[in-house]
């Protein structure tokens, strides 16, 4: 390994030798594990806010223009005695999606688990650039604060959808939103800087700082996923930043990038936004795919089925994700001929996802499956992701998309992918790595209640949205009962909202379990799940510098479960077998 690493090693080793003040240790920490926990804290807090916004939106759709219980205190003109007015409603779903995508799912999967796991799983003492890492968190926190502040400015928060199509997002008079939309742009520009710092760090760390013996094809799939995600982040976020810059200039500096009145082009925004936006979808799902792959192998006590196919299919997804953005624009007025070519690439990108699904099933086949809470969420991930993947085929077919575009069919699809996929993956990850992060086990019984209630609540909420979509129910409408053809569908809306309330209630079990376990959970051993990867070589929780003594040496791939070489059903990557070292397979 290169010289740069030995320098970093020396620096980190030195750092372990002196006592750090509270502030350096827990607040302005350079330690990747603390930074990961900081991202987890902000991510979970924003998840709560995003979830409450979702429930408010659902209340309005089930019982339009009635007072939301418990929200009578919200001042006018945001709400009127608990009743949500249409402009606030638009702000609520806009901010729900923005917060969930940028401030909850990304920070939890990429910010928290990327940070916490990369050095531990590749056998490094920290990230390549610890200071940059710390800055990445604090810059993200500034973006968080700006986004939340936008609720409190005159005109309210952004209300043009998370996709913020101009001219609606461009001219304040069209939406009635003034500084809210500007702050939305500024917050996401700032967040882009944070992700840039994070992604550069992840990529450098994974390329340069792998432990001795940790070849590329001995990396756990979680690390492959995070590596590919970091590349997508590095390349996609600046495109969004460029678009946001143009939008902001249009709003405050009198430019006309997206305004036809000055020769601009509204569709330009859609191209820029979705050129970022589609890789973004994979930024949200790839880490969950990697995490689920690892957890499925651990609790099936079996090697992952088709390791290389799993790694290559993620690369294929990442590569293809750059040429499918037009499928968001089939009905936008873009040339219909172009629509056909985007349909082709979109159909093709479904193939690597299919490969992954079959490989997950292959991993379970003839396994010895232990139903721990992380495993239940990983299984839930596979099951829900399949639904989200299959529903995507409908909208990939351009003629069918004519009908279902901008309906609840799309809302169902995105939630099966981002909640059923990414969030189930995130839940699995929290239960799985909690012992390593905090040194204590979570409660299994509460975890299982959380899983089953979440699975049921999730499906009661999102499955019937397919029915709404088939019925033609548009997205982003304030009151479905204004339309004659939607009246028969109103009971479905009520059912969905009841499901959403159950889903929200289910999360209380996670909150209770999290805090209870944090302080009173049984102490976790070094390797409670009997897993192979390097993070389980470190103490729970790992000290500053991660591995006391020398860095581990890697002798084999991460999935040697039930190997015939040993009596027990796992064979850690760092365990040296006398006489058999060289013969160990690389995968």
């Amino acid at each position: 390994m290169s010289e740069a690493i030995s320098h970093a090693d020396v620096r980190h080793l030195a750092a372990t030798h002196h006592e750090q003040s509270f502030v350096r240790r827990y607040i302005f920490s350079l330690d990747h594990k603390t930074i990961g926990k900081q991202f987890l804290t902000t991510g979970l807090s924003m998840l709560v806010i995003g979830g409450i916004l979702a429930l408010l939106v659902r209340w309005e759709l089930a019982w339009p223009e009635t007072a939301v219980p418990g929200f009578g205190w919200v001042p006018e003109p945001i709400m009127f005695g608990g009743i949500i007015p249409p402009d606030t409603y638009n702000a609520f779903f806009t901010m729900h999606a923005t917060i969930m995508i940028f401030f909850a799912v990304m920070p939890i999967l990429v910010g928290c688990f990327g940070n916490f796991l990369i050095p531990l799983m590749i056998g490094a003492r920290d990230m390549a650039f610890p200071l940059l890492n710390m800055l990445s968190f604090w810059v993200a926190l500034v973006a968080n604060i700006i986004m939340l502040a936008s609720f409190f400015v005159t005109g309210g928060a952004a209300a043009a959808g998370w996709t913020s199509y101009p001219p609606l997002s461009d001219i304040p008079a069209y939406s009635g939103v003034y500084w809210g939309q500007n702050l939305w742009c500024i917050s996401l520009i700032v967040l882009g800087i944070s992700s840039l710092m994070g992604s550069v760090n992840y990529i450098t760390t994974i390329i340069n700082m792998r432990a001795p013996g940790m070849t590329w094809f001995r990396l756990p799939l979680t690390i492959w996923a995070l590596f590919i995600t970091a590349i997508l982040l590095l390349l996609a976020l600046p495109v969004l930043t460029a678009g946001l810059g143009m939008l902001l200039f249009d709003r405050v500096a009198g430019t006309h990038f997206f305004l036809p009145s000055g020769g601009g082009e509204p569709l330009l925004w859609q191209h820029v936004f979705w050129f970022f936006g589609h890789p973004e979808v994979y930024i949200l799902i790839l880490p969950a795919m990697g995490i689920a792959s690892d957890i499925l192998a651990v609790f099936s006590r079996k090697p992952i089925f088709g390791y290389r196919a799993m790694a290559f299919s993620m690369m294929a997804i990442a590569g293809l994700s750059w040429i499918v953005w037009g499928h968001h624009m089939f009905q936008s007025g873009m040339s219909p001929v172009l629509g056909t070519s985007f349909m082709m690439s979109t159909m093709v990108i479904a193939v690597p996802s299919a490969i992954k699904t079959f490989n997950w099933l292959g991993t379970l086949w003839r396994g010895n499956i232990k139903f721990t809470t992380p495993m239940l969420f990983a299984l839930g991930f596979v099951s829900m992701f399949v639904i989200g993947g299959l529903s995507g085929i409908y909208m990939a077919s351009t003629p069918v998309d004519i009908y279902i575009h901008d309906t609840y069919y799309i809302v169902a699809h995105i939630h099966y992918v981002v909640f059923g996929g990414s969030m189930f993956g995130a839940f699995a990850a929290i239960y799985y790595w909690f012992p390593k992060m905090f040194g204590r086990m979570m409660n299994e019984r509460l975890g299982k209640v959380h899983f089953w209630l979440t699975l049921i609540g999730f499906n009661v909420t999102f499955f019937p949205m397919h029915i709404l979509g088939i019925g033609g129910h548009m997205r982003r409408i304030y009151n479905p009962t204004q339309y004659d053809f939607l009246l028969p569908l109103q009971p479905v809306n009520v059912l969905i909202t009841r499901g959403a309330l159950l889903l929200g209630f289910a999360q209380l079990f996670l909150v209770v379990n999290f805090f209870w376990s944090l302080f009173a959970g049984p102490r976790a051993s070094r390797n409670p799940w009997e897993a192979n990867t390097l993070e389980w070589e470190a103490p729970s929780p790992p000290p500053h510098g991660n591995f006391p003594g020398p860095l581990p040496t890697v002798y084999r791939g991460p999935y040697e479960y039930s190997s015939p070489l040993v009596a027990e059903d796992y064979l850690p990557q760092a365990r040296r077998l006398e006489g058999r070292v060289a013969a160990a397979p690389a995968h």
Partner: protein
Amino acid sequence: MMSWLPEGVSTFAPQIDRLFYGIYYLTGAVFFAVQITLLVFVFRYRHRPDRRAEYTHGNTTLEIVWTVVPAIILVVLAFVSRSTWANIKERIPPSDFEMGVTAKQFNWEAHYAGPDGKVGTDDDVVMDNDVYVPVNKTIRVVLRSKDVIHSFFVPSMRFKQDAVPGHEIPIWFKVTKPGKYEIPCAELCGFGHSGMRGWLHVLPQEEFEAWAKEHKIGSTAPAAAHG
């Protein structure tokens, strides 16, 4: 589930519904196959202390099969979809009647030729939220927007097209059943987005002609409208 689909009343509806049903059966089959396999595996291979999982890293033949088969199915689906898409959005057949629809916050303006017999001039006959067309005729509409992006959506026709400011987007349709159909706006267009809806009134030819005469519509013939 598909019974929730509104009645289809345009020439597009049977073509789109055929694909919709096709994909429904295809994905339905895959859905059940995968979910049942998952459940069977989870049940059959549940943990027993006396058993050991099979040590295998994969099966190349199997993996090639489950890569190639979905790839073929999806590419075929793309080709099948392609011609329907072209029929609806790429090729505009010769029209029997021409008009314009202009979206604005939060109305659909229907534009008909005025005394000069041309659509898109100052003497157009304009009505808010009521679009009258004859049944079984090919209608050509130029879709415009005055302010933000809207989306012209007629669920019963299985038709949708965004209206974009700065663009004049030609669309066409042929409705096969007289009646009154809702035209919601499908693209978020501001605080009045919900409730932005018009009505598509589809009349038999004679009734439509009487209506056109009553409202002094300049021409119902395509030749004049081409002007």
